[in-house]
């Protein structure tokens, strides 16, 4: 059996999208016959068959994005072709790129595992860009101990920096592999991936572009009945706020110094998951009833926590809401994520002692924190928005 893995079809690419298979499982194919069309960052590329044989498995579907080196297709090679394929496999396996790697005919999984174990004893191969090696040397980091996040585990400059310069508490981690210096307690370095990495990037983008200004106040919920649904009320209040100050439901492009105001209110809801922060978007908040909002909210939160939420449902919010107070926290300075221009945070709902006229009373109140991008929203607009939100929240059920 031969497993063909996606080779680097350009120069230094990391992935490709499957466009079309020209074969299906069970097909006989000749070496060099058309097999597959893929699209890389550079080009649409026709990939011919690397061997003559029978297709036994396809590991990707049209539309899938496949990383370089991932298995694409398996063949049972013809008797005549198998020798050549084995040779190709052997030869390719010794190449750095490791782009075509298969099993030797007759090599069982147990054998393969044994080989892998044997390799593990001699130590994993270290692949790093030269600049990363140089940086590692200057930082005193043994490059072999760095976890590579580049293509095929390639160690990048960022990876070395994550180990060698991880901020203020870096000192204890400077020589993680040095036997004479035990790592500090809980000192394993974790390179950010996926959601956490996305958060790091969008927060940095916000820091580098948004001129954030936050304002705080409370909504008095004393007039509410029982069975309160805070989030749907807050969504309705946002709609009211946007009607008062449309400038907060907008995108701003700092490069072209242009803003786009939206009729449609699509609110990104920050959802805390085990893997990190997800922001599914609830569309047309201005058109939905409270009941509809609740159904959609529940669906999105569930989908976010199961990680079944579609990428379309995570894009293009026009306003953002963080109800961090469902856990703890009274006020915050929530972060505006461009191109949106504002975010409302709701703190923990609490019973406060307040001055009601000349009397002291205990009222339920919701702390509100509004951050807006002062490049494009004036302070007046922001507080008028917040005032409208509060007025709407304070209406009876």
């Amino acid at each position, binding site marked *: 059996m031969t497993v063909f893995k996606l080779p680097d*079809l350009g120069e230094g690419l990391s992935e490709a999208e499957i466009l079309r298979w020209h074969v299906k499982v069970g097909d006989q194919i000749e070496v060099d016959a058309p097999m597959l069309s893929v699209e890389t960052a550079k080009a*649409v*590329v*026709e990939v011919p068959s690397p061997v003559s044989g029978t297709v036994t498995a396809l590991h990707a579907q049209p539309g899938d994005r496949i990383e370089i080196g991932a298995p694409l297709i398996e063949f049972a090679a013809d008797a005549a072709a198998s020798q050549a394929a084995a040779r190709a496999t052997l030869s390719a396996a010794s190449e750095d790129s490791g782009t075509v790697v298969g099993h030797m005919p007759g090599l069982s999984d147990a054998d393969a595992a044994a080989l892998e174990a044997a390799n593990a004893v001699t130590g994993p191969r270290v692949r790093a860009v030269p600049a990363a090696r140089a940086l590692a040397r200057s930082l005193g980091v043994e490059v072999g101990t760095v976890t590579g996040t580049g293509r095929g585990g390639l160690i990048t400059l960022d990876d070395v920096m994550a180990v060698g310069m991880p901020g203020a508490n870096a000192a204890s981690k400077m020589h993680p592999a040095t036997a004479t210096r035990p790592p500090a307690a809980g000192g394993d370095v974790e390179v950010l991936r996926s959601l956490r990495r996305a958060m790091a990037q969008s927060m940095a983008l916000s820091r580098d572009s948004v001129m954030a200004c936050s304002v705080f106040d409370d909504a008095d919920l004393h007039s509410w009945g029982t069975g309160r649904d805070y989030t749907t009320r807050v969504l309705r209040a946002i709609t009211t706020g946007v009607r008062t100050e449309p400038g907060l439901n907008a995108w701003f492009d700092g490069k072209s110094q242009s803003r786009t105001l939206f009729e449609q209110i699509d609110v990104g809801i920050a959802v805390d998951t085990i893997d990190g922060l997800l922001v599914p978007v609830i569309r047309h908040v201005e058109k939905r009833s409270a009941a509809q909002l609740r159904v959609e909210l529940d669906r999105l939160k569930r989908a976010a926590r199961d990680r079944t939420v579609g990428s379309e449902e995570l894009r293009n919010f026009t306003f953002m809401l963080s109800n961090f107070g469902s856990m703890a926290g009274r006020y915050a300075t929530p972060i505006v994520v461009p191109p949106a221009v504002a975010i409302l945070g709701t703190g923990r709902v609490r019973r406060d002692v307040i001055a009601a006229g000349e009397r002291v009373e205990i009222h339920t109140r919701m702390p509100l924190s509004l951050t807006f991008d002062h490049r494009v929203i004036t302070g007046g607009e922001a507080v008028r928005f917040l005032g409208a939100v509060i007025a709407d929240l304070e209406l009876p059920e």
Partner: protein
Amino acid sequence: MSGQRIVAQFEIPYRACLDGDGVPLGALPAWVDDAELLRHMYRMMVRARTFDTKAVNLQRTGKLGTYPSCLGHEAAHVGVGAAMHADDVLFTVYREIGTKFWRGVDMLDILLYWGGDERGTRYQRSPQDFPFCVPIGSQMPHAAGAALAIQIRDQRRCAVAFIGDGGTSQGAFYEAINFAGVRSLPLVCVIVNNRWAISVPVVAQTAAQTLAQKAIAAGIPALQVDGNDLLVVRDAVGDAVERARAGGGPTIIEALTYRLSDHTTSDDATRYRSAEELAAAHRLEPIARMRKFLQSRGLWAQADEDGLRAACSEEVEAAVKQYLATPKQSTDAMFDYVYAQLTPALRAQRDEARRYAALAH
């Protein structure tokens, strides 16, 4: 009436021997009577194309690095090879496998080179020829230098240099031809105008009507030929080579052809050129044209074609097997051939590479 008069006038002749269907346009050069030479030249074009097709497939399946196809250039490349003498010196860009094969370079060498193994530039049968030159235009000063050496040594040889249409915009090109012109060097420069410098068409490359006319500023005779016409390429370059070898100075020949392939395997030409343009160019491609000419003279039968294709495929397969079975070089190879004596910094790099190579296996 006034003080104005014409002090110099120039023209660029254009030559072709065959039309697009392989029909002679007039009297053919005398050497065309050599049937075996014609058949050999045709075979070399098919050989180059067979290899070329396989090389692209090898890249697509992860067995070869980035590769620049020569599809459509076969007449321009083989014609130049056929016009040279064995002791001339060849300077190429990176596509001219048809010329290299003619000079005796092995298919294995070309595969090794594009597989990242510098041993692929150790040409056994034409050791004086220079390797592929990827930095655009940089081969031109090398070629002028070699031509100067030939002149100083008073040898009856010449340097032959290829350059592409995009390359003629480079300073190195102008400097080299200026030097060749003023010193009357034995240099033949073949501009392979395949109309596209990656995605830049010739009309966006230069306001000049022809690329050949750039020779006028250097005082070098120049002409334009149909680069898909094997006969005229061999004939025009042959004349230039003989003149250069006899001390008659340099010549610049612009060969008009068309890059039927992507620029390299990293490129996707459909993004910047039309299917109609490509289809029209396919109708003028050189191999079918030459085959029709041979057939019209009774020099080529279907059996010849079948036999040739089988032989070429077999030869390519054998070279590929040999290539895939070639043991990898050590990392020292990156350092060993750059300086006669390694500098301390390079020595440190070589030693570092050795340490990591040991980790990697």
